[in-house]
């Protein structure tokens, strides 16, 4: 029976060779070639100029991931202790925003954060800005929130928080409660139970959540452009610009993509070492 079944996979293996493996090989080829078809390393040399962009992208993505974890873990944990129908509804509610296009949600943040945006209008109305001016002796008409790195991080957290909550929740909710009871029976207090039982057991979910937030954050280009005002170039912007944007240079774009991919893969390998022996990362 087994051999007969494995034949079903043949078309997909061919498909993967063409549409998964070949594109990456082509990307590698592009990265090592110049516009005229010769081989060169200059794309990588040139990339040195962009070290700051790499640094900024990874920094912002790390901050966003950390914030997602700080919010996402407690939320998933508390959620798992609610009633079953509450949990189901909450899960649907967390998934639901994905059906509203993320660009639109991000655009909505623009109208909230603008200098004359909804939030500043609100602050004005309740006198928060006046109060702040009195306290600090400054003369602000608004708080500048948009076009800052903070706004970009906010956009990342907002868009990818569900990707942190879902995997963590799906691991925690499957925890065997008799383990917790056993731990308590053996004299552990709540903190110890959490640290020694719940946390280690939920690690696979945490790791997969981190990956699912970090990877899209580090490579985003729409969010940084909309909320960052184009003053803080991120890796995604840099790559987009080489292909379909203002600076046509697909070779350089391929090289940057390649390096980014390698760094991300290394990060993930290192992380998976932490979770070694655990179940394979849980997706969605």
């Amino acid at each position, binding site marked *: 029976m087994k051999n007969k079944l494995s034949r079903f996979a043949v078309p997909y293996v061919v498909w993967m060779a063409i549409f998964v493996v070949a594109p990456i090989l082509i990307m590698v080829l592009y990265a090592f070639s110049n516009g005229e078809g010769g081989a060169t390393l200059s794309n990588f040399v040139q990339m040195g100029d962009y070290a700051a962009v790499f640094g900024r992208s990874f920094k912002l993505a790390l901050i966003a991931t950390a914030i997602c974890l700080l919010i996402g873990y407690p939320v998933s944990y508390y959620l798992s202790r609610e009633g079953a129908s509450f949990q189901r509804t909450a899960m649907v509610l967390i998934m639901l925003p994905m*059906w509203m296009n993320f660009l*639109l949600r991000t655009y909505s943040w623009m109208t909230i954060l603008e200098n004359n945006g909804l939030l500043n209008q609100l602050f004005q109305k309740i006198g928060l800005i006046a109060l702040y001016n009195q306290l600090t002796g400054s003369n602000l008409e608004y708080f500048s929130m948009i076009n800052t790195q903070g706004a970009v991080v906010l956009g990342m957290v907002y868009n990818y928080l569900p990707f942190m909550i879902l995997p963590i929740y799906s691991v925690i909710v499957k925890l065997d409660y008799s383990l917790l009871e056993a731990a308590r029976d053996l004299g552990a207090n709540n903190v110890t139970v959490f640290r020694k039982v719940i946390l280690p057991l939920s690690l696979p979910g945490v790791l997969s959540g981190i990956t699912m937030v970090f990877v899209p954050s580090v490579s985003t280009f729409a969010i940084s452009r909309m909320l960052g005002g184009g003053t803080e170039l991120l890796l995604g912007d840099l790559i987009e610009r080489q292909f379909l944007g203002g600076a046509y240079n697909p070779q350089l774009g391929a090289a940057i993509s390649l390096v980014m991919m390698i760094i991300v893969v290394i990060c993930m390998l290192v992380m998976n070492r932490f979770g070694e022996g655990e179940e394979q990362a849980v997706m969605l």
Partner: protein
Amino acid sequence: MRQRSANSAGNRLLMILTGLFLYAPIIILIVFSFNAGTSSSVWKGFSLHWYAQLFQNRLIMHSVYITLLVSLLATVIATIAGTFAAIGFYGMRRKARNGLLAVNNIPMMNADIVTGVSLCLLFVVFFNGWGAFAGWVNSWQSVIVLPERLTLGFGTLLIAHICFNIPYVILSVGPKLRQMDRNLVDAAQDLGCTWMQAFWKVIIPEIKPGIISGALTAFTMSIDDFIISYFTAGTSASTLAMTIYGMTKKRVSPEINAISTLLFVTVILLLALINIRENHIQSHSHHHHREAAVHTPAPRKKGGGMWKKVAAGGLACVLLAVLIFTGSAARSDRVVNVCSWGEYIDEDLITQFEEETGIRVNYQTAESNEALYSLIKMGGADFDVIVPSDYMIGRLIEEGMLAELDYSAIPNYDLIDDQYKGLSYDPENKYTVPYTWGTVGIIYNTTMVSEPITSWSAMFDEQYAGQVLMINNSRDALMAALCCLGYDINTTDEGQLEEAFQLICDAKEKGVYQAFVMDEIFGKMEGGNAAIAMYYAGDYLTMLDNNEDLAYVVPEEGSNWFVDAMCVLKSSQHQDEAAEWINFIAGTDANLANMDYIWYASPNAEALAEYPAYYEEEYGEPLDEEIYNIMAAPPEVLARCELYINLPQETLKFYNDLWTRLGI
């Protein structure tokens, strides 16, 4: 049993706040879909206007159609292919399976942008290879004529979506297979089933929950995807996300809020139906599922009714797609693909042209000259007519990308003022028909600056820190700096360029710039979010309609005046239709309508002269002369302005380097 409600009020509060955080922007979006005004931050009263408008908007309806179609097709194909692949993997030895699963995970683990870029490159390489092959085939036989130029489009978009959907299906079917009792198939066969029967009657029902949840995940991913589509769809198959992205650069039309609200409500209703049904089943069967699968409760018992609902929902989607399809399917064989800038045409002209000639117009927009160039180079588009600016036309001609026009098919060319013919970018008038012309200048908010602005130095002035919007385009930005320093705007002297670059850099360092923007300027200046910006005269007049405090000046140091002209790409398959379109647009009536709509001056002498009268007739009041002079700059202003000329390759590269350095 687990403890119920073990949460304190504080814990609850955290959850509520998270919910609020997730939903605040969505609620705002929905609320503003009922706004009577166009703004997305100022409430002008309740109205269903945008919902009515929505169905008139061809661009949006078409992108909704593309989105639904590609998501449905990709989901169906990926679900079937993924299920078979998962079964195949299940039947393999562990080692082979793990290896293949690792490859399978690549699209999921990779950043979307890497997947998008690598697929884009694959398509480009394939297209190039195909071009050579088709050329060779066509050269030695004439029975079958193969198209030599392929471009990104619906096909590539579909492939990309299938590509990133299959892994999700495999991932949700795989575990169900592993949970299945391995003896079941043998038992079925022992009881007289053929292998095929066992497959359909035993394996498939066992893994059905996995298949369904995989399909739903795939569909969600497809609908929500933007980045991969962006790199693989070209411009002809814009998904809703891509259309929205195009709009976020200028102004998101509330129609988008309306369509999103409709889609959102549909999904909520569907999910509510499923959930009610599921609760019903649960309370009957006393069977508590602890599945984490969000959309899909595991339907062990009595699940049939619910699947009917899901099927009905799916069917409704299909019907909707078909409806839109038939709605937009007034198709004809004659097509012309036009690419221009955002809000750069009176859209009624498109309908008018279609009715007159029966030629269907695919109207698309690019962001900037440079982006247009990249798009064409990457094979991302199959445009016929493009409307680049002077210097880019020069570059396209130099690189042999434009087709020579047959002016006998464009009689309206004679109406174009001689002043706009034979300019430096096309000295012999072989390739272009001018579309509009205008000046670049400074737009400022009179309530936010202390004195009228007359000089480019305002763009670099610390006094306005955080209040200035710099243009996000190297040529124009450096032009401002060059003018400010008193250099020629077409200089190739790297020292002068470097100096100009330093001026911008210093200003950026000092925090003068609030942002680097292109069409985002509209919303930001109209909303009073910035004091000073540099942009085009015509667009200033559009903004003036929405904010009377704005003023425009062509700085005393001089500036750039530009001509945007229609040209036809060499690769165009629709040269005749392209000529008809160009002729139509060059006509006086079209120019008048366009001028009235976009406020850019027309090169058609008759139209330009007639415009004040046209305006008076249309609006019942005379046209302010000042406004007319801003639109069509008088000779004394033009005297201090200069056209861009196409720069040599090294200088272009230098511009590029400078600009990227600025972004770091």
